[in-house]
């Protein structure tokens, strides 16, 4: 049976520490290039800051980890790539990027509404000797190709091999955990098989407070978010904020306790 790997990220538990970003970069041999900027760097996992736009002690902020959403329906990047460098793996539902086949036309990047794709503007390089510390499971990408989160496919591959060695066809769920999930100190990022109705993550994905970014575009992302706070959930769709910077903060939790100066 084929899996549909996905995530539920509990934004109420995300402290914005950035462990997931660092773990992801280390796992996938992302170079730390000094010349890279916020808009040219490689951040397959990127934690972004949300704010309810209010000042003073009414202000609230939250953090949202953004990674490839592994869209299921009319996956935008897969459809536009002129040479099949992006494919949806039927067995796992993972949207695979194949840098070795990428022309670097960046059409997929314009197609992705989540800005989860990154272009190698420079050749990768590391301080002398540091290449010894690279993860042997993942090849480094050259300049001029696009890359993104592939749910630590190297780990999936390793799990597969382990299963094969043990004569099993299905992998052991415990063997395949993406680096960001493993790293999250508050277990805010949860990873599981959405196709398995018994999987707690699959169940959580359908809980009341779960939502997906830009769901109305209809790309069926497999990365879910959840939050008890209405203003955080309102960040899912552009229409919700109705243009005004002030977003409806959830009063049920601590509005009464907020002190007024």
């Amino acid at each position: 049976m084929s899996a549909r790997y996905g995530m539920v990220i509990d934004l109420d538990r995300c402290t914005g520490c950035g462990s997931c970003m660092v773990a992801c970069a280390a796992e996938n041999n992302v170079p730390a290039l000094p010349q890279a900027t916020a808009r040219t760097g490689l951040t397959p996992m990127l934690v972004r800051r949300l704010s309810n736009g209010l000042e003073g002690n009414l202000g609230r902020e939250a953090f949202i980890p953004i990674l490839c959403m592994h869209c299921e329906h009319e996956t935008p990047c897969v459809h536009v790539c002129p040479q099949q460098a992006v494919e949806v793996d039927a067995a796992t539902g993972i949207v695979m990027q194949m840098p070795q086949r990428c022309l670097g036309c960046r059409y997929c990047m314009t197609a992705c509404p989540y800005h989860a794709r990154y272009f190698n503007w420079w050749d990768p390089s590391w301080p002398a000797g540091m290449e010894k510390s690279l993860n042997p499971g993942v090849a480094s990408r050259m300049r001029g190709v696009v890359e993104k989160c592939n749910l630590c496919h190297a780990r999936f591959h390793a799990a597969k091999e382990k299963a094969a060695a043990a004569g099993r066809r299905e992998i052991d769920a415990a063997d395949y955990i993406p680096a960001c999930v493993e790293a999250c100190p508050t277990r805010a990022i949860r990873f599981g098989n959405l196709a398995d109705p018994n999987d707690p993550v699959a169940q959580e994905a359908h809980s009341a407070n779960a939502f997906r970014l830009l769901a109305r575009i209809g790309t069926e992302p497999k990365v879910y978010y959840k939050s008890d706070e209405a203003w955080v959930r309102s960040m899912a769709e552009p229409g919700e904020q109705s243009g005004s910077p002030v977003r409806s903060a959830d009063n049920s939790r601590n509005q009464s306790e907020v002190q007024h100066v």
Partner: protein
Amino acid sequence: MFPGIDGFHWTVGHVVFLLLFFAVASTILGTVASAAWRTAHDFRSHHAIDLCWKADFAELPEADRRCRHELSGRVISRTCDNQFDCRTCQNYSHFAVLPATGVTQDLGLDYPADRLYHRGHTWAKPEADGTVSIGLDAVADHLIGPPDSVEVPEIGQQLDVNQIAWRVRKNGKEVRVRAPLEGTVISIGGREENWSMKIRPRLDVQDPKTTRHLLRGPEVHGWISRELERLQLQLRPAGTQPTLADGGMLIHGLIDALPEADWNTVLADTFLEV
């Protein structure tokens, strides 16, 4: 795209798309190929020569493409639509029956009546032994004068009518002389005979059709006078009156006398060069 390339799966889309693409691509390549093949074929079947002449003829200015019957005054105005080849001209007989008008007037140039003239300023003289002598005519002679060098064909070489028979160089300019008749070169005269050469024509000279495309009689006069008018206009220094208004003599080696004139155009017009 081809078997054995990893990670590529065929879909119906591929089949349709690639079929379409290859259809288009092969159409384009086919076009080039057929053009090339036809070209080769033209060369094999001696059509190439005609085609070139046709193309050149098409490029000639209107004034150079007058019908011989207009020159002789049999018709008021007619542009030749047959590349000067009266042998295949279906209207020729229709015009030929009309009498030639106009009186012969000496232009101070030597155009013997026993010769036939080609628009490229060459003459052809059928000899008794069935050969034909050909050479540059008086106007050409006067324009060029003593040439710096001449590039003549080899003995036994095939000449094609209207094709470049020999080349004359003067003051760094090249004059490409067109052959009046097709035939084989059998002898070439020296400087004194002005490189007039003997050829054995491919067709029988006695047959009038063989030389029908060459000018004779009143046509020559009409033609020459037109040529002289043209030369007057082209050779006169800017802002002066026509020099030959009185039909005065062309001086020998005009090209040396008037170095400032636009000889590119003059020679091109004179020798039907494009």
